[in-house]
């Protein structure tokens, strides 16, 4: 790395988004994230859209540096534009977009200048549901349910127990809300403004933001040390 380029490498993130959680369900994909953009420990921006539709067949959700996500959106806009300009009845599906992003992320990582994001890419094409993830070091994989960041530790155990094929839309939303509620309780960078998006063969639907109901009267929360070792 020559000294002129030194100041151009990404060293740390500034404005970050927290977890994204996504599942396959009967008709397609459901993806949820909160709308927060944290500036370090300050919950600074509260209306950041971190889930976006891409082309006709895909949804992308991002956690990590928001400016890098905006850059990725620009790359994807150009990709989809070129795809549409062929005007030939072929279109890029979620699998193709996921692989393209994997190449981009991995190549940036190799140049020690990563896009500081963990991305979730989901979609439906020709009846085939696809859900995958790629992160800033280029690790990518597909699964029936995906989460980024703390979602991997808090949401995926819930999904491993309760996810099954043929979830209805209502069941899927309830499951995602359960995951987002746990994240809201336990992730310090979560905000209570959730956005859910749906992708089916017919297209993408972005639902309006909403808040989760929270309950703070759990006795174990109000009195956490009762019955602890050495107490009376």
């Amino acid at each position, binding site marked *: 790395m020559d000294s002129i380029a030194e100041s151009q490498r990404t060293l740390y993130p500034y404005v970050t988004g927290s977890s994204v959680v996504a599942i396959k369900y009967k008709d397609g994909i459901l993806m949820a994230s909160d709308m927060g953009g944290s500036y370090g420990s300050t919950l600074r921006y509260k209306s950041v859209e971190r889930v976006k539709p891409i082309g006709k067949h895909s949804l992308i959700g991002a956690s990590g540096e928001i400016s890098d996500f905006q850059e990725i959106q620009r790359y994807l806009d150009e990709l989809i534009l070129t795809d549409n300009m*062929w005007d*030939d009845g072929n279109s890029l599906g979620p699998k*193709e977009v996921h*692989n*393209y992003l994997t190449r981009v992320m991995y190549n940036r990582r190799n140049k020690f200048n990563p896009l500081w994001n963990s991305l979730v890419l989901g979609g439906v094409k*020709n009846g085939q549901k696809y859900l995958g993830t790629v992160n800033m070091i280029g690790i990518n994989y597909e699964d029936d349910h995906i989460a980024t960041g703390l979602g991997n530790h808090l949401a995926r155990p819930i999904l491993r127990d309760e996810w099954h094929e043929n979830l209805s839309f209502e069941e899927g939303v309830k499951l995602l809300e359960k995951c987002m509620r746990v994240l809201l309780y336990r992730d310090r960078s979560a905000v209570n403004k959730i956005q859910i998006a749906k992708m089916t063969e017919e297209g993408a639907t972005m639902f309006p933001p909403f808040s989760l109901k929270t309950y703070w009267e759990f006795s174990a929360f109000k009195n956490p040390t009762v019955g602890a070792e050495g107490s009376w």
Partner: protein
Amino acid sequence: MFRNQYDTDVTTWSPAGRLFQVEYAMEAVKQGSAAIGLRSKTHVVLACVNKANSELSSHQKKIFKVDDHIGVAIAGLTADGRVLSRYMRSECINYNYTYESPLPVGRLVVQLADKAQVCTQRSWKRPYGVGLLVAGLDESGAHLYYNCPSGNYFEYQAFAIGSRSQAAKTYLERKFNNFTASSREDLIKDALIAARESLQGEKLTSSVCTIAVVGVGEPFHIL
């Protein structure tokens, strides 16, 4: 065609609006040995007549596998054909690496046509002297395209190029209405009969004719 004062280079128009060098390149295709292609809803078959220079030499390779889902048959300057096949293979592999998906045939054909067009508009180049029958499968079904040295491309249900291809074309014109619903075996049979037509009396043997197939669940391969 006769020589005239407008045919020295490809960047000279004739008063009638023709580029003679490009037309001469298409002549080279017509002089090459025949190549035939036909398609059904699920399969595409390529057949070509392989002429060996002498009994001692091996036969010209005229059918190239470009990817699991695409193959080409060429007629004309086979050296140009080999170079273009290498380009097509490269494009397919690069697309697959980035998108982990097969390159749609229509897009490859357009890229090939644009490459050929460049050679019709540069004074230091010459047009490729080869016609390509591109057979391939993608999401939108089975396709057969013909790429000209002029940079034009057309999609066909069935087509033949090269010397004595008119005889094959006449046979195909009679039968093409049935091709969409044809089975794989019937399609191959029709390809062989069309090849025999263009041989005009010579015996049709496996040393003279090569057949290749690509279909749903069947990667491109030479039989």
